[in-house]
C-alpha cells in the first residue's frame, strides 16, 4: 500500500524501483481530472479511447521520466499530443470523404479571442437549472472556443498555473492570460449574470 500523501516525485521514484502500487496511486490521483480534460476537449466517445492511449503511454515512459520534472505538465503534454493527433486524423478523414460540417475552422486560430455565439444569455443555464452546478459549469466550458476551453480546463481541472500552461502549449504567458480572461468572461456570458449570482 502506498500512501496518497506522498509527492509525485516520491511515487515516480518508487515506481521506477519496481513498485507497481506507486503507479496506481499516481493514476488514482490524476485519472479523473485527466479524463475530464479529454472529455471537455474532444467529447465523450473519443475521450475513452484516448484516455487508454494516454495512460498506456504514461505507464510505458514513466520509467525514463526524470522524477525532478513536472509530472502534471508532462501528463498534459502527452494528452495534448494525443488530442492533436486525433484532430489531424479526423481532419484528414473529413478531407478524404469531403464531409462538410458546420465547424468554423477560423475559430480555432491562434488569434481567436472572439466571443462565442450566444443569442440569448442565460438560455443554457435555464436548460440545466435543475442539474448539478458542476454539470452546468461543464456545459458552459464546452461551449467556449477551443483555445479558451483548453486554458480553462488545464488551469481549473489539471491544476496547472498559467506559466505551466504557457510552457506546455509553447505560447507566451500573455497569450495564455488573454485566453483565460476571455474564457472566464465568456463563461459568465454563457451562464448569464443571474445564474452566476445564484451559483455563488
Amino acid at each position: 500500500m502506498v500512501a496518497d500523501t506522498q509527492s509525485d516525485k516520491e511515487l515516480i521514484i518508487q515506481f521506477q524501483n519496481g513498485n507497481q502500487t506507486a503507479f496506481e496511486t499516481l493514476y488514482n490521483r490524476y485519472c479523473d481530472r485527466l479524463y475530464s480534460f479529454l472529455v471537455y476537449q474532444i467529447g465523450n466517445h473519443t475521450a475513452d479511447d484516448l484516455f487508454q492511449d494516454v495512460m498506456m503511454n504514461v505507464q510505458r515512459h514513466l520509467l525514463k521520466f526524470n522524477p525532478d520534472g513536472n509530472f502534471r505538465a508532462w501528463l498534459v503534454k502527452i494528452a495534448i499530443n494525443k488530442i492533436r493527433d486525433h484532430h489531424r486524423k479526423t481532419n484528414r478523414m473529413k478531407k478524404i470523404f469531403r464531409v462538410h460540417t458546420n465547424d468554423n475552422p477560423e475559430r480555432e486560430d491562434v488569434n481567436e479571442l472572439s466571443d462565442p455565439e450566444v443569442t440569448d444569455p442565460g438560455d443554457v443555464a435555464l436548460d440545466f437549472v435543475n442539474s448539478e452546478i458542476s454539470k452546468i459549469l461543464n456545459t458552459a466550458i464546452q461551449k467556449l472556443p477551443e483555445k479558451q476551453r483548453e486554458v480553462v480546463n488545464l488551469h481549473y481541472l489539471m491544476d496547472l498555473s498559467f506559466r505551466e500552461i504557457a510552457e506546455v502549449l509553447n505560447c507566451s504567458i500573455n497569450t495564455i492570460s488573454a485566453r483565460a480572461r476571455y474564457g472566464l468572461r465568456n463563461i459568465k456570458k454563457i451562464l448569464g449574470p443571474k445564474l452566476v449570482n445564484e451559483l455563488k
Partner: protein
Amino acid sequence: MDCENIKELLPLYLTDELDDQQSMAVQKHLDSCSSCRSELDNLQEVDQLLKTHLKPESAPLFRLSEKKSKKRYYYLSAVAAALVLYIIFSAVQPDKPELTWENNRITELMEINDNLDILDSDYRQLAINGTTLPAEDEELYSIGEDVDYLQTLEN
C-alpha cells in the same frame, strides 16, 4: 500601461503569477480605474465558481495489468521462436529419428520390460529355492511370465 494591457494581465494578477514590478503596476492602476476593477470582479466571480464547484468526471477503468500481457506476449514469442528453431533443426538433420511421443513411450516400455526381465530371473531363482513370494511379488512374477510369452511371439 493602458487599460487593455492591464486587463490582459488580470488572470495572472489573480493567480499571483506576476513579478513584483508588474503586480505593483496593476495594483496602482486598479486603485484609480473602475472599469478594470469591474473586470477583475467579474473574473474573480467566475474563478471562484470554477474553483469551488468544478468537479471532474469519473475516469473509465484503465487496464493497469497491461505490462503482464506484454510479458505473456514475450513468453509466447519465445515459445514460437523455439518451435521455429526446432523445425529448422529437424529439417537440417533428416537422419536423426523423430522423437515423437509414441517413440518415447516405446522406449519407456522397453526399459520396463528389461527391468521385469531382471526381476523375473531373480524370482525364478527364489522359487527354485522354495521361497514363498508375497502377493504383490506373485503379480510381478506373472507379468514376467507374460513378457516371456510376448517375446516368444516376437521371435
